[in-house]
């Protein structure tokens, strides 16, 4: 992926943002502070109920915060709502379309609501249909579309007014890999053209592939922030994972458990996962023990292998509502 042109000026500045819903025991956003640079492809990750939707709603001026401030393009979202809204494109998780209207009618309507008209509106409708590759289906009612086609239209409606900031809330839920790939490519193109994108998803692979900056949020707080390599380095750096081809003899398992550097661990028949404060030394010791016992390795890794491991390490494996 080509590196997009990045302007270092923060486009979104969130300071001490708190949102406590009426009757709730704890805040959905808890004094959250975050700055996002212009031109960033920003991934916002978190389990259900972490506060992602609340943050997006507040950013779009749909929700009044209990405390703190949100500035987008230097303007306060609460006091300059109209200005901020006209520069933001929101792609909701739901298919925010009118099923009995055609794609062209949907785009024209939302374009007019964004203040477009005349030739400019026609141009933008045509451009959006082209981005979504819906030119041939433009005059068909949306309720005759497949899920993937609807998702593509849902995406380009958010682009109708050429926003500077595009906010996408899980835009690839429930679609086939081809449609997902199409949306990814479209977003990459937009990003390379300089658009700032805020993207939420539960698919960690998507975030790893698309985003150049990621925040993991839970209980209304940011738990981790950075580019994917930074996150992988910063979390689970002391984790060693090994997969074996044969069952581990009890004597060898005892040896591994007795290693002085191991903090916590899970040693099973063909699987080893240990945490160590001195991972390099521990890795050498494990390799030595396994080689001595002539046990063939299938894989051996140090540190987190992917974003999902970091995510689960930070947010836990407990099921969420």
């Amino acid at each position, binding site marked *: 992926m080509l590196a997009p042109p990045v302007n270092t000026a923060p486009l979104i500045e969130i300071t001490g943002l708190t949102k406590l819903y*009426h009757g709730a025991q704890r805040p959905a956003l808890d004094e959250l502070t975050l700055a996002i640079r212009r031109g960033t492809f920003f991934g916002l990750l978190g389990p259900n109920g972490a506060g992602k939707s609340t943050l997006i709603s507040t950013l779009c001026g749909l*929700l009044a915060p209990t405390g703190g401030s949100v500035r987008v393009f230097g303007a306060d979202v609460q006091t300059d709502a109209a200005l901020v809204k006209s520069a933001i494109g929101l792609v909701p998780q*739901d298919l925010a379309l009118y099923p009995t209207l055609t794609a062209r009618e949907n785009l024209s309507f939302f374009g007019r*609501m964004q*203040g477009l008209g005349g030739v400019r509106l026609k141009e933008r409708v045509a451009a959006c249909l082209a981005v979504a590759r819906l030119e041939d289906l433009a005059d068909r009612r949306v309720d005759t579309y497949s899920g993937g086609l609807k998702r593509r239209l849902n995406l380009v409606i958010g682009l109708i007014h050429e926003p500077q900031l595009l906010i996408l809330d899980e835009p690839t839920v429930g679609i086939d890999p081809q449609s997902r790939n199409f949306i990814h490519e479209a977003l990459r193109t937009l990003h390379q053209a300089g658009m700032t994108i805020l993207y939420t998803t539960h698919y960690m692979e998507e975030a790893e592939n698309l985003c150049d900056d990621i925040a993991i949020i839970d209980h209304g707080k940011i738990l981790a922030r950075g580019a994917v390599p930074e996150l992988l380095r910063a979390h689970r750096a002391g984790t060693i994972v090994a997969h074996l081809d044969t069952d581990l003899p009890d004597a060898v398992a005892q040896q591994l458990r007795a290693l002085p550097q191991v903090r916590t661990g899970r040693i099973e028949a063909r699987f080893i996962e240990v945490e160590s404060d001195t991972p390099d030394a521990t890795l050498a010791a494990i390799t030595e023990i396994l080689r001595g016992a002539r046990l063939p390795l299938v894989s051996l890794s140090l540190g987190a292998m992917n974003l999902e491991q970091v995510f689960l390490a930070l947010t836990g494996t407990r099921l969420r509502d």
Partner: protein
Amino acid sequence: MIALRQLIAAVAKESRLILRDWHALAVLFVMPVAFVTIMSLALRDVFTERAGVTFSVLIVDQDGKLVGEKLRESFAKDKHFHVELASAPLPDAAQVEAQLTAGRYKFALLIPAKATEQARRRALEQVRSDGRASGHTPSIGMRLLSDPTLRADHRSMLVAFTNGALRAIESRLIAERIVELARTPFGSSAVSAPALAAPELFREVSDEHETGGTRTMPNPTSVQQNAPGWTLLAMFFLAIPLSVTLIKERAQGSLLRLQSMPVPTWVLFCGKIAPYLVINQLQLVLILAVGVWGLPLLGGDRLSLGNAPEAIALLSVSASLAAIGFALLIATFARTPEQATTFSATTVMVLAALGGIMVPKMVMPPAMQQLAELTPFSWGLEGFLDIFIRGGGVREILPEAARLAGFGIACFTLAILRFNGRLRHH
């Protein structure tokens, strides 16, 4: 300028959505037409029955003595009347007519001042055969004013009842005078036999119904009772599709998307109001057309529209505003289409029943009638009856139109407050 463009876009979008849902649209027109046709034909003769009917009557007793007292007693004893006595300062005939036009009473009896004194004197003159005072005192005229919405048969019944009560008083006064004369020397020979047969102390009462000026005033028919009522019901039934579209937009996320755009809430709401306002007017035109041309073909009465089309238009728009405001309010409180549908249907039916749409207010007990006055259905119905039956114009229906529009605006304001509050704080 941008807001206007947005409003036009919202109206166009809403119109497209409505026009593409033919089934829902058909129901909005077929349902009221079917109701008006069936109810007007089915109830054509029901209104002629007197059983269970209670009439509110205003008695303006300028006499304050025996004649007034006995008339009041006669009406009060009959279970079909709910008597209210005008208090001082007593209203004049014009004020009473205004109250009848406003629909506060079904009829009013005006008893002239010194009626008892005059009746006694005339009775004495009538019973004396020596002619000493005969012929000097004229017979007494009572005025019976009635609400023009009262059916002709009910009106005849009231006239007959009043004349009957007067005859009873007459008999008593004549009897008293005879007794008086009999106590005087040669008294019995002084009694006039013809006077006993036809004393004529009181002139025969005839009905004067308030026509609201010089306009023509046809008698009410079942279609005139039913058409406005069912039109109002149809208008308020619009609450169901309107509230459901708003809730669906919320569920689909399109409302959220619109809220994320620089679009004022009033534009979103007015975008919905305009097409439904047009539908309401088309409903009214269709129902009136059925009343005027369709029902006579089926053997029903012809709907008489009065003489003030501009008043019909004003009242119709006001009623529509009330119905749409009510629908928007429901839409902002209901969470699901099912909730909105159930709540709208139930509330509309209860309000319609209470407001005299299904059961005429005149057959309701007085307490229910007072309660009915609080419903927009009653305001609308009275307004249409003002035009169709009482011959009223814009001036006469202004209070009802203002109430309906006020109700609509109040609902609309509450809906916007609720909508913005719910979105921003929950």
